[in-house]
Every structure is written in C-alpha cells, then in structure tokens.
C-alpha cells in the first residue's frame, strides 16, 4: 500500500519523490519564530575601540546576559574578529575564551551598552522585540566584572601567537580571522540555551594579551528567543 502526503493549505498536490534516487523532496525551514507577537530571531554586531595593551589575564571584554523569565534564549552563533593596530605586540600569546556564566545576578559593565532596547535588530520586523537584558562590549579597557559564576572550562578557545605577526602588525595584522565562529550551532546542533536560573545566565568573551600592542575586536551574536512554555527541547 502506498500513500501520498499533502499539505495543510496545498492539499491537492502531494510531495514528490525523485524517480531514480527515490528521495522525497523537502525544504529546510528555521525554528518556528514567526507568529504574531511571538518571540523571534535577533542579531547584534558591535566593535570595540582601540584596546589597551597588557590587560589582566582573562579580562572580560564582551558580556551577553539573559535574565528574562518568560522566554528562553538560544544562542546560535558567536563570531569574533580581532585585529592589531600599528603598535606591535611583544612576542607572546593572545588567548580568547568564550565562557558560560551562571547565577548572573549583576551584570558586567563599563564598556559600551549595545543592547537593542528599541524594537530593532529583529530578523523580521513583525517579530516581537527582544527581552535580552544586556550586551556590553569593551571600548578601550576591560569590562568591570559583575556577579556571576563562570564555568571552570570555556566553551571555546582560540589562541594566537604574536611572534608570527611581529613586524607586520603595522599593515593591519589579523590575529583572529574575520568573523571566526567562536560558537556555531548548525542545523541539528544543540544551541547554547540560557534561562533566568539563579538571576540569569549568559556568556563572556575573555581576553589575555601580551604586555604591549594595541588591538581591536568585533563580535556578532545571533540568537533566538522562544516562550518558556514552549520548552526546549
């Protein structure tokens, strides 16, 4: 016995099956975020100014904090770019960590606030405004740490040796490639799921850099918000 599958509105023409590969035709759609006044998908990109040399080890330079109780935040992509200015670094290692923060009761601050407080940064205008608590990105120095418990081990790490760029930094050495995927949940991958547990959750990007050298970085974060009642997964 064979059956044919028809759609909800297109209930006349059934799904096709290729005659030779015997594969059923499908299209891939994103998560269902498109209902009126339902949560949605968002993206924010931001850049630092010229960052100071010789930050303390593991200094927080980017803080993404979620505190809302009505929704769950699904972080899909975190893209990092780091470049060196005309002031070369001494030989050493640059280290960038993405670390999850839990029980985040007080936010990191003192950089530039880039949270989309207005109804902006939606991937479709009809989506509801984000309820993200805050994004802070460092401007010239480290962020001031908030109250949170960081995981012992980072989710992602990228390390760069400055010895390989000594002498060429004046031409704009790129230390972390453009839009390097520090975190990326592809189709079928599990995203980073943030809730308001313990006052909030989020992630930091931490930097450890050699004593001299001036640099700048940018971060683009793409996330989705779903109702807490939806549950995930």
């Amino acid at each position: 016995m064979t059956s044919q599958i028809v759609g909800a509105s297109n209930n006349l023409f059934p799904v096709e099956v290729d005659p030779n590969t015997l594969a059923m035709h499908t299209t891939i759609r994103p998560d269902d975020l498109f209902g009126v006044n339902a949560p949605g998908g968002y993206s924010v990109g931001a850049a630092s100014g010229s960052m100071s040399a010789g930050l303390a080890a593991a200094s927080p330079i980017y803080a993404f904090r979620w505190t809302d109780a009505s929704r769950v935040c699904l972080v899909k992509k975190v893209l990092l770019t780091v470049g060196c200015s005309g002031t070369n670094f001494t030989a050493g290692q640059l280290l960038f960590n993405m670390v999850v923060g839990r029980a985040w009761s007080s936010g990191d601050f003192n950089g530039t606030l880039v949270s989309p407080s207005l109804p902006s940064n939606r991937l479709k205008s009809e989506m509801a405004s984000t309820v993200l608590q805050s994004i802070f990105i460092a401007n010239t120095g480290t962020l001031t740490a908030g109250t949170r418990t960081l995981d012992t081990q980072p989710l992602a790490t990228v390390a760069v040796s400055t010895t390989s760029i000594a002498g060429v930094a004046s031409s704009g050495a790129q230390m972390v490639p453009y839009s390097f995927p520090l975190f990326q949940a592809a189709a079928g991958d599990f995203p980073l799921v943030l809730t308001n547990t313990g006052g909030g959750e989020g992630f930091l990007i931490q930097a450890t850099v050699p004593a001299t050298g001036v640099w700048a970085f940018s971060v683009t974060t793409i996330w989705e918000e779903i109702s807490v009642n939806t549950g995930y997964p």
Partner: protein
Amino acid sequence: MAAQIKTQISGENNLGPAEVELNNSALRVHVMPEDQELFGYYQMATRTTPFSAGTGGINGVVGLLVLGEMGNVAVVKQITVSFLLTSAGTGSAGQVTINLVRGKLVTGASPATISGTGANQGTVISPMNSMMDGRKRDSMAIPNAVAIQLAGGTTNTGLVSSAGGAIFTEPFNLATVTFFQGTSVSPTQTITNLDLWNTGAGDVPIVLTSNWDALAITIVQPASSTAQTTDISCLFRWHEMTSYP
C-alpha cells in the same frame, strides 16, 4: 499488540515510493530550495570606491538592498563584502569597521530618488543595468528588491537619516567586522567575500517585509592620504515569496 501498518510514500508524478536506507533506517530526502512561488531567486553585486583621497567616513553607506512596493517579501540568505586598499599613496593607519544594519527609506524616497535627498551621499548609479538582471533563471520574475550601487569618491553619510538623508537606520547593527589598515599598504590589503550575513541550513534569514525596508552596509574608515583608494564590492543573495514562512 496492535498490528503495525506499513505505508510507502509515493510522489506526485513518480508513483514509486521513497526509499528508506537499509542500515540506518533513515528516510531518503532531497533538499530543495524554498518555493519561489511566482517570484524567484536573485543575486547581485555592486562596487564602489566610497572615499576620495583625504577624506574618511563615519557610517558611510557602501551598499544597499531595498525592498520595493510590489508586495512580496525578500528572504535574504547571504551578504558578503570585499575590501581592497590599494598600494598607491600612503594611507592613514587606523581602525576600519564594516557594519550591516537594518533600515528603511524615508517616506517618499525610492531607489530612484536617493540621489536627490540628503547631502554628500553621492549619486546612485543605477539600481540595475536592467530590471531583469540578477535572476538565477531566465523565467523568474522581476525582483521586488534591488541592490543599489553608490557612486564613489564621497562619504555617503548623507544617506543616513541623522544627516537628513534617505534612510532611517536602526540604532544597533546586525553584524560587525573590524580590522586595521596600516600606513603602508604594500602588499595591498585585501579582504575577499567576507560574510557579513550567511543563513545556514535551519538558520533564521533576514526577512524584508514592508515597502522600502532596507539593509545597508556601512563603513567607518580613517581619512586616507593622497591617492590612496578603497574599493568595496558587496554581494546580495536573496529570494522572494508572497510571505515568509
């Protein structure tokens, strides 16, 4: 125990059933592009040299994708930017930031009239050489969205509404990439096809739904010295439907 009913799925034209793999028991599928309905799939590239020698830019617009008023929506899949700083002259070292930002043309503005509003924004060369350009198949419809190529040699900052221009932009960017250009650019500094936006399988695309919704690529760049030239090209890839999803 209830009897299990086995059903095979047959196609619309091919009545032979779909296959299920022997070992992992997975249904065999063929991933198709999303349905273009009566519209189509489009891709278009633009190029500009935004700043004349001796000037820099603060959020100068270097590329635009604007939705027209035919009523269908644009589902934006990919936006790339290429950046070339030539070896001619001596540049000014400093931080360069390229942004993707959502915006909207002000009431009454249109791609054809951008050049007539605001100050210092240069001139729109042409939305397209032909309204039929950019289709990925000849039988596809004329696109509702248009990629706009801007004239070179200006800061193009007048396009942004704060300067009385033609585009309201949102306060924060959708995507940002930053890097440094140096004082001596030999060899030339080149970035090729950098993804400002790339919708992967299962990712949420950027959807333009209202008339004159726009996506702008902006750049912040230090002032350049004599004869140094920046050359920027943008690529837009999208498809159009009556609604999304």
